[in-house]
């Protein structure tokens, strides 16, 4: 009996030990719910829609609030409107979207496209990356890049200066254009490219438009105008994302639906447009910010990333800066921009002609920078770029809602202050005075 038990025990323990490895090992701890690798084509929609959504979300709301196109009137948005609520944690979502949901994804997707020789994917990703870096550095100035995206390899990423970031942006855009002009490699982008459906020329134009915006920020007006002219030929070329419906609605629509009453149209913009008898466009913009009611902030919103009308205004601005009173070409560009804005708002030639006829747009020869920028301010309603324009030009003149200054930049995310020892000192950084590189 005892002998039998001894054998039994030895066999039992040995088998349990051997089967232990089988029982808990192998792929058992591989996540059955989520893949460990995905093809680049599966990453593209997530990157693109995340970019569209952050641009039409935090960037648009904070940008147009500080530019006084919209005002926060209820709950947290009252404090944001008065700037006091613009504490670092308010920028956490934007920072995370930019870095974690867009830029880091781009690094992974670039690596796999590069490895697979998918040149058009790589080119497209570089253009998107250049664009993303630009919208980010325009509000955050210096930011981690070379030392970023390393996970545990570098938990306190060091910062690149804005000038450095800008040179990387141009490099990415130029390389992207060059790749797009070359062969695609074995697999080319298609329907998963929700911006352009894999249209190579559209991407090249978009890259030039982005470059134009950057050169404008950096005060290279002629360069900006040249890139602008070489980019979009009409509003049909606009870079943007078409949100499909109320279930996947545009960011403003979702905000107005779920945070109804928090933000409304701003009296400053109302006064500017009223002063210019801009009644038709005003009647569309100046509605209660209510999902379903607002005629512009609709569910199936076309979220513009960069547009033909912005390019036309860049041409106009460069022209008016170079030529007192403007040349015909610049003037035409401005009118193209204004007209594109009417069309974007669902208005037609009738309303546009009536607006031009009422004399609010000065005649060629007497156009000032202020006129151009004011028209751009109106035409670019809730486009984040308005905030850059205002910071560059001070047009339109804004009275701070509280205190003595309108913020000229964003705080870094509170995550950066908390978890990155290389982040600037939160207590000395001022959102009122520490202008971003190109704005100094």
């Amino acid at each position, binding site marked *: 009996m005892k002998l039998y038990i001894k054998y039994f025990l030895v066999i039992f323990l040995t088998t349990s030990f051997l089967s232990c490895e089988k029982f*808990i090992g192998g792929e*058992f*701890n591989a*996540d059955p719910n989520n893949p460990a690798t995905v093809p680049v084509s599966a*990453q593209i929609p997530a990157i693109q829609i995340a970019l569209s959504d952050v641009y039409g979300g935090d960037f648009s709301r904070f940008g147009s609030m500080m530019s006084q196109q919209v005002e926060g009137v209820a709950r947290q948005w009252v404090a944001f409107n008065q700037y006091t609520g613009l504490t670092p944690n308010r920028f956490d979502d934007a920072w995370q979207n930019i870095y974690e949901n867009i830029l880091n994804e781009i690094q992974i997707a670039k690596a796999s496209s590069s490895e697979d020789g998918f040149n058009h994917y790589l080119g497209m990703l570089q253009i998107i990356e250049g664009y993303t870096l630009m919208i980010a550095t325009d509000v955050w100035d210096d930011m981690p890049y070379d030392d970023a995206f390393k996970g545990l390899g570098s938990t306190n990423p060091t910062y690149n200066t804005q000038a450095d970031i800008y040179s990387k942006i141009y490099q990415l855009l130029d390389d992207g254009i060059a790749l797009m002009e070359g062969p695609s490699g074995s697999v080319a982008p298609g329907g998963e490219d929700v911006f352009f459906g894999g249209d190579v020329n559209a991407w090249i134009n978009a890259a030039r438009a982005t470059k134009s915006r950057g050169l404008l920020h950096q005060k290279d007006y002629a360069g900006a105008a040249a890139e602008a002219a070489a980019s979009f030929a009409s509003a049909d070329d606009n870079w943007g994302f078409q949100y499909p419906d109320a279930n996947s609605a545009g960011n403003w629509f979702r905000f107005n639906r779920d945070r109804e009453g928090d933000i409304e149209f701003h009296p400053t913009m109302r006064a500017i447009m009223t002063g210019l008898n801009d009644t038709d466009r005003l009647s569309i913009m100046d509605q209660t910010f209510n999902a379903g009611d607002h005629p512009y902030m609709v569910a199936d919103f076309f979220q513009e990333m960069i547009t033909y009308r912005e390019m036309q205004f860049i041409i106009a601005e460069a022209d008016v800066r170079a030529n007192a009173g403007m040349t015909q070409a610049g003037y035409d560009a401005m009118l193209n921009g204004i007209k594109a804005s009417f069309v974007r708002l669902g208005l037609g030639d009738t309303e546009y002609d009536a607006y031009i006829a009422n004399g609010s747009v000065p005649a060629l020869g007497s156009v000032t920078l202020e006129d151009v920028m004011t028209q751009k301010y109106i035409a670019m309603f809730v486009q984040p770029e308005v905030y850059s324009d205002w910071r560059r030009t001070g047009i339109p003149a804004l009275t701070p809602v509280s205190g003595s200054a309108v913020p000229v930049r964003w705080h870094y995310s509170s995550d950066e202050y908390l978890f990155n020892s290389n982040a600037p000192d939160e207590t000395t950084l001022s959102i009122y005075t520490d202008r971003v590189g190109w704005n100094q």
Partner: protein
Amino acid sequence: MKKNSLILVLFFCALGTMMAQRSITGNVTDETGEALIGASIIVKGTVSSGTTTDIDGAFALEVPAGSEVLIFSYTGYTTKEVTLSVSNVVNVVLVEGLVLQEAVVTALGVERSEKALGYAVQEVDGTDISRSGASNPVDALVGKAAGVQVTRASGSAGGGSRILIRGVSSMVGANQPLIVIDGVRTNNETLLSQGATSGTASSNRLMDLNPDDIETISVLKGAAATALYGTAGSTGVVLITTKKGSKKSQFDINVSQSLAFDNLTSMIDLQNVYAQGSGGNYRDPSTGASGSWGPQISELEYATDQTHPNAPTSSKAFDASGAYNFDKNGFLVPKGTGNGNAANVYNNVDPFFKTAVSNTTSIAMSGGGETATFRLSASNLTSDGVVTNNTYDRKTVKLASTINPFDGFTISGSVNYTKSDYQRVQQGSNTSGLLLGMLRTPVSFDNANGFDALDAFDEVSAYQFPNSTQRNYRGGGGYDNPYWITNNALGYEEVNRTFGNTKFDYKVNNWLGFGLNIGYDITSDSRKQVFEIGSRTNASGAISHDEFNTKQFDTYFNILGSGDISESFSLNYVAGVNVFSFNNHQTTVDATGLVFPGFLDISNSTSLSSFENETRFRSVGFFGQVEGNYDNMLYLTVSARQDYDSRLGDPTNFDLSKTGFFYPSASVAFVFSELMNTTNSSAFSFGKLRLSFAQVGAPPPNAYSTQSVFVSPSIGDGWGDNITFPISGVSGFDQSSLLGNNELTPELSTTLEAGLDLRFFNGKLGLDVTAYQRKTKDAILNASLTPSTGYTNVWLNSGEMTSTGVEITLNATPIQTRDFSWNTQLNFTKSKSVVDKLAPGIERLFLAGFNSAGSYLVEGNEYGAIFGGAYLRAEAGTATDTDLNIPGGAVVINDDPNSNEYGYQAVDPSQRAIGNPNPDFILGWNNTLNYKRFSLNFLLDWREGGDLWNGTAWALSFFGRSQLTADTREEAPTPIEGVLQSDGSVNTIPVVRDQSYWTSSLGGFGAVGEQFVQDGGWIRLRELGLSYRFPAFKMVKGGSFGISGRNLWYKSDYDGIDPETSLTGAGNGQGFDYFNMPGTRTVIFKLSLNF
């Protein structure tokens, strides 16, 4: 015990009823002649022949022919054997003897003499669980064992509770103890369908166990006590033994019926003076105004004439016939300009809640003989919440049985089936949260639209206009009308669960026995949350269908034995293997964009999305334990366990050795009273010193932490709803924000425990003191990374934490006479866990909560410290500023004349530790007084300290709804105490804390959370009960009738609802009250009959 005396004289016939018998009668008394009630008498050599003494100490027993010896025993007294003589009358005097011969259930269900234990174990008797009246076994444990902390999440019917033993032991992993029922692990999870701070209340799954089925609960507290359970026991173990029927009885039936009434204990103090509006001006509901910053309601009266200059102008205000939509009395205008009917002050809160009724019927049949026992029980609970349409029903059936087919071999097992049905109401931080909209409603608006509060639930016109839009105080915006919620935003949940075990024990001889225990626990939890079209959370309507299937299997194979090596040295051992597997599979279908109202089925939606999630892990453990006993004086126990856990495995490069971890434990019990010459009459009767050491490892809190994965992201920024793939027909994936880490090692904690157990006056007074220290290192933390690393989180072996605690139990029987006895027990618990270290560069880790106040792990602070916005202090930024805690010095006052917050407290740009949600100590005082057939018990529950962030008060200050805002807006302008920011001089800027103040950074939704952190401690009368045991009559062998109350009274400094509340329920981050459902008080009537 004397309470057993309620079982009156019972005759247990021996198996051979044909045999000749003789009747023995007699009395059992103690040395003073007092009758001993409930003393046990059995016929030696049988297991089924026996009886107990009645209330007079008398007994009568049929003794089979051939039996000659009766055994008399009584707890606390020396057992006596009496050989029968010719006389049929036997009177016996029992002498008080040493206590502590009692066996307690320890790890793996091994019964050990309490005397032998080198660590703290506390048993709670099933009758105390049953008597508490709680339908959730976890709630029933409050105050009954030192070291145990129970928090009920809310007063919702079907809401769960959180239990902790010795506070927290894991920094971010599960902290609730392992629940073991009849030797196998049982699921006590709390599954959330929505976020931790929103959604409905959730259950803890131990609620599926009928408390009346519990025989005893043994609480294993420290690591030495739980070492044999491996990693799973690192948070303490609650060992539940269920009733299985007795070999002594042949057939018993117990039927009980209870009826309970619940109502709300408390509500936050609301103002009822100021009407809806802003800046002192009235704004009617059609304007959507959110606040109650209007004029005094006594300055308003009704008008119905639309041409009135103050008539609302919004198209929402009037219907086609010109009648005002928001009040049948008309709209409000300044007094003297309307129809002279003064404005009503509507109470939208108190009348909304009803007295809830719940009903429990249970029946149990049990019996047994020489070779088998069985117990079959069934129960039915139907309960209402205090909110109409909140219900909880539970049906349980349990069969337990043991069989001895031949000597030494036992098969035992139990099967439980439980069906629970819940109907739940949205709560917490969401625009469909019941109290969120209710408490914000101004007193000038009637949510019930003129109907009687309890009738309005059935009156659609109370909460909805004919065009199907909602009637609420913000003209359709804002929040759901509470009546709308209880009709249109309900959660339905059905849980079907079966659990049980089968156990084989074979004893070859004293030195060798085998045990195999196979346990299973299978739960299916099906949930459907609906939001009708027009919900403020899901405007186009939504249905969310969740199916959770949880399966766990737990198998133990043991070899065990014991015996004497020599006269004074004995040994026992156990060794074995444990195999465990867990699998939870969730399938969710979310349907949005409903086509038409009134049909809440996913086929009525325009957009469907679905996902599935499987959580699985397995572990294998090898364990062994040896206990040596020298002369019943010195006991030494040594144990070891080696666990292998799949959660440490790297799927791409698996290495078994990296998944394994070893832990040893040792404990010593030294019964020093054995060295002393203690006699039965001496005051000091027993003394024991305990010492133990144990090291415990824990796997990562989640499966699959070793590899980075891609997920289908949800896109958005936290303001509007996020959007999810597929979007426009394409799917997308992105790398999860959680970085995988294949370098993880187990988290290790080392516990040292010392205890002293002293008994006096033959056990009538007992004192048990335990102190421990637990050091955790390599804690696996979900460390934050700044997103510029590409990720936001990573599981990292990085944390260190030290927990210390003291537990004191004092037992006393100050009075024990024939008719009257008083037993009292004090359970004192103090535990403190301080975070020593977090991940490199990481100052704090978020557990739960809000921006203005969240629960975090912060170095140097207690576990879960509440971190949030604070007032700026004079010493901020100076050398004394630790950067974590609120700096010293006076509050700094903003004196920038251009600021909107001129004269208010300045805001500290850094968030600070503004509260500690952990109680300083917990004291339970449990008393039972018996007088003849009456029994009175009460339990006082004192929780000292433990902060709560009063988010309800925070939000209501913004809306001007709290009484505080009514008081402060009337104050004369006074400077706020503090010093000026510009020059440090004493503040002299007079301000009124009015709308401007409470809607600034200092009020609701502002950055500062400090002023709303309040002491959440309490003293409460947790239980109070009076019962009467009636004697046998006719068929009825006995029974009882009792009236008891739970939570009848409490006292607290907390300025809100009953502070026994937790928005985050069972989660690790605690200390939040945000429109939580207040707790309830319960009165229970219970009738129990034995046949």
